[in-house]
């Protein structure tokens, strides 16, 4: 019996080996740190043992297993890896801005593992980002949750394969400008956006039905049932209706947020997170009751008309009203200091340390459906950790080391001038975008509409 067991195990192990090799897992013991667990308070002079990529033990005076790297973090703070629920870092393409619904496209197809922005995010303590489609379309593409395992040339090494799928929706000025104003097709107004979404779902219901009818008929003996046409777009919408996706919806105004909540209620969709949500404070109870939360900016607004009614108290008001709230970057610049962004909620709204840090850890993890795996320092969770000099909510905070799955991907002491993975053979100086702080939400979209005006693209 035992022998057979070993043979079977060995066989499986051989087969699984290439898969394991793809995503490296590390071992590390961090000693004597002030551990900001997020879910279990602050633990002084505490050790964290990560083995095979997983947090095995959190406690005092842990002994080091043989051959493990020990990091002395006395006087330093350790928090879980920061999670960004809305990002476009590490993407070669952001928008497929040519159709009001592009649910069929998938950001996993365009992940750029060479983007040095991933390394910069690590230097800001960010270990996970939701690499999202842009906001050009009412229903954009499927997103991909990335773990920042920088240093590989294989995009798939960055995929957090165990994360549920999320999909981008967008309301308001962006989809109406791109499709309505520029091309004269629906949606040209906020009403049009709602119509596009509702029509899409209704079509998906019919699509699903036609396939169910066919599949049932095809099972009969000697069936001559003719398969219906396939549509990756409608199939994806049907999957949303079946609860297989979490919607992450770009939105600003309270009325349109309410609108989409009503659409979701009508189609019995439960998994929805609103992004940006600058007027979220007006509909906080509704958001708390019906959604998986709101992902906001700390203090960024007035870049176009629909974003004037805004407040830096937004995150605090939402949090205090029971909305699962996160602070996101939507930017290759902001992603480097999301801990500062979280800190702003203490000045505007007086959130506690734990509440403020939850905005960039456990809350975005909940919004991405991965809170059972990451987002806090707990035994059994993945070993994504950041060591800070000074408290992360202090203006003096500086990330020292960032670990993903127990492997160190950033160390301020080993930080080189040139951290690029891939270098052009002909460009002496590679293009640097000075306006990196601009959102990439509308990246790739023609900036000029028929009026010739330049519109802000956030």
């Amino acid at each position: 019996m035992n022998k057979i067991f070993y043979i079977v195990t060995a066989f499986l192990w051989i087969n699984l080996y290439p898969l394991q090799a793809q995503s490296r897992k590390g071992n590390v013991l961090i000693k004597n740190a002030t551990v900001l667990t997020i879910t279990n308070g602050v633990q002084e002079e505490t050790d964290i043992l990560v083995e095979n990529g997983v947090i095995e033990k959190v406690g005092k005076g842990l002994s080091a297993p043989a051959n493990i790297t020990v990091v002395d973090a006395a006087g330093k703070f350790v928090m879980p890896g920061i999670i960004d629920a809305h990002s476009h870092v590490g993407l070669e393409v952001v928008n497929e801005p040519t159709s009001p619904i592009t649910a069929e496209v998938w950001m996993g197809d365009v992940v750029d593992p060479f983007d040095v922005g991933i390394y910069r995010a690590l230097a800001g303590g960010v270990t996970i980002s939701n690499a999202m489609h842009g906001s050009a379309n009412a229903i954009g593409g499927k997103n991909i949750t990335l773990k920042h395992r920088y240093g590989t040339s294989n995009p798939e090494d960055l995929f957090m394969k165990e994360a549920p799928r999320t999909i981008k929706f967008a309301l308001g000025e962006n989809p109406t400008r791109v499709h309505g104003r520029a091309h004269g097709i629906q949606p040209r107004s906020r009403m049009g956006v709602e119509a596009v979404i509702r029509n899409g779902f209704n079509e998906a219901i019919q699509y699903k039905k036609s396939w169910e009818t066919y599949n049932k008929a095809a099972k009969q003996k000697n069936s001559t049932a003719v398969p219906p046409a396939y549509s990756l777009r409608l199939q994806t919408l049907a999957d949303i209706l079946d609860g297989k996706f979490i919607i992450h919806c770009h939105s600003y105004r309270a009325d349109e947020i309410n609108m989409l909540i009503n659409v979701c209620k009508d189609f019995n969709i439960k998994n929805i997170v609103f992004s940006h949500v600058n007027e979220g404070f007006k509909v906080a109870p509704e958001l708390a009751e019906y959604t998986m939360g709101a992902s906001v900016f700390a203090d960024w607004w007035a870049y176009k008309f629909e974003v004037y009614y805004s407040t830096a108290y937004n995150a605090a008001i939402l949090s205090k009203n029971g909305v699962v709230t996160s602070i996101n970057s939507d930017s290759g610049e902001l992603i480097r200091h999301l801990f500062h962004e979280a800190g702003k909620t203490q000045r505007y709204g007086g959130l506690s340390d734990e509440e403020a840090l939850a905005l960039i850890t456990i809350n975005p993890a909940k919004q991405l459906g991965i809170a059972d795996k990451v987002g806090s320092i707990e035994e059994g969770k993945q070993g994504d950790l950041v060591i800070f000099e000074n408290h992360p909510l202090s203006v003096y905070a500086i990330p020292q080391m960032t670990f993903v799955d127990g492997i160190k991907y950033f160390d301020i002491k080993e930080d080189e001038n040139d951290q690029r993975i891939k270098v052009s053979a002909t460009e002496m100086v590679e293009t640097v975008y000075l306006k990196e702080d601009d959102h990439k939400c509308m990246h790739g979209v023609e900036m000029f509409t028929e009026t010739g005006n330049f519109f802000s693209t956030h």
Partner: protein
Amino acid sequence: MSVFKGHNLFMQMMAWMCSLFSLTVLAQSDPTGEKRVTGTYAITNATVFTSPGHSVTQATIVIKNGLIEDLGKNIKIPIEAREINGDSLFVYAGFIDVAGNAGVGKPATPERPNDFDPSDPPHEIVGITPYREVLDDFDAEGEEIADWRKEGFTLAQLVPKGDGMMPGKTAIAVYGQKGSSNIIAASAGFSSKFDAIRGMYPGTTLGIMAKWRDLYKNAELSAEHQILFASNSGIIRPEKNKVLESFFPVIDKEVPVIFEVSDELETRRALALQREMGFNLVLTGVSEGTSLISTIKEANVQVVLSLILPKDKASKKEIEDASSETTARLDRVKEAYKNSLKLASQFEKEDVAFAFGTQSAKSEDFMKNMRLMIENGLSEEGALAALTINAAKILNMDKITGSIEKGKLANLVITTDSLFKKGSQIKHVFADGYLFDYEDTDKQKEEKDEDDPVSGSWDYAAETPEGSSAGMMTLKKKPDGYQGTITFDDPEGGGKKTNEMKNIEWSGNTLKFDFDVDVKGMHISVTVSGDISGEEYEGKLSIPDFGSFPFRATKTPDSNHNI
């Protein structure tokens, strides 16, 4: 040197005499007088490389009816054969281009309809035309074909040139005599690339990936429907769809997808689609991605490397007073340049039987680039295999071409020395049994001073507040320095003026000179100063009391020996 023995000389004389009286004697059979005297040839006493690494010395090859009729020593030469004395010559199998555009035109894009909807454009407007045949846009007498044949290419897979993600079907043609169709196979492959037509769906790589999946799945379903319809009654009539039907041979693995990729990430995307759908895949235009070699081998995918190598802007570049950071960055560019030259050798080391494609490459750079790859680790046998037998196998044509064997197509390259040796020249090319002779015009080319980066013709452009100004500068090395002239837009209007370049100074990488411009009696001395890096010159043009403006020039190809 081809020497005509007695009977051949007689034939030649006859031909000449016949042509004199052609109107009366041969009017019916050859009114043009272009018909060749004989289609039978014998190359005697040559060193014949039958396949990479295998050679026979003092061998004779007999060519007849477009085929290799016989090969070996002590072979009987047919009486009608024209003999080519191969005493000092080397014979190789004709080169094969697995992905080329020579002679291929770009089909016209149809007009957009009035009710054009960019979110759902007609297939032919958005470049989804897999039903198109490249042969519909092929000119067998195109000039580029002669250019590539001159470099030794005798057979090519023609890839359609249309815009969009699925421009059409490839074909295989031999680079033979004009007047013949020269086509060996139509519908040989299904061409695809990550080329989106902006502003309509699919407008980006994202959309292309999704559209591929959608079309492929629908093609499978459409095939299923057609089979049901053909063998049952009571089935709804399948809607004919020429786009989906074009996928059928791909689904049945009768033809491969010829996927053009421009970088490593595109290569991965093509591989991902192949993994999902299982079609036969030939990657073309591959120019990077050594980390992908094992994946490519596992997937059993064919690889066609690009013949384009990056311009050498870095390897000789020095930056004065550079910080250690700048130097380190420059070193990485140098390393990246070196690595791209090594790519072919890396594939060879890993036993990938790759070939080459000429798409977008320049024929005049061909041999230079082959030698660069060889200098950087590719073996000569490996290079020859890539150009011949590997390519034939990828095209599934190794029964008829790719090596010198009895019964194979008479496609041969005949050189004056070992193929890749510097100074070796192509003297004759046989394609489809037709002989093409090349004169010894390149001799001077080899004698030119290749290390002189200055001499030659340069196209320049200068950006001034009045707009950009362009012209040509021509430099020539003399015992006491450089001499040169520069053309520029006549400021007094109309046309170009030419003036002498003065005070030409050349030191390090820096080239500096002055020239005079006369404007309404005023005499302005203009100074240009900048650095040469390879074929690029970058600097500034200064006009006294006016300012300095960016000045850029590029050496025109092969300009060193035009002067």
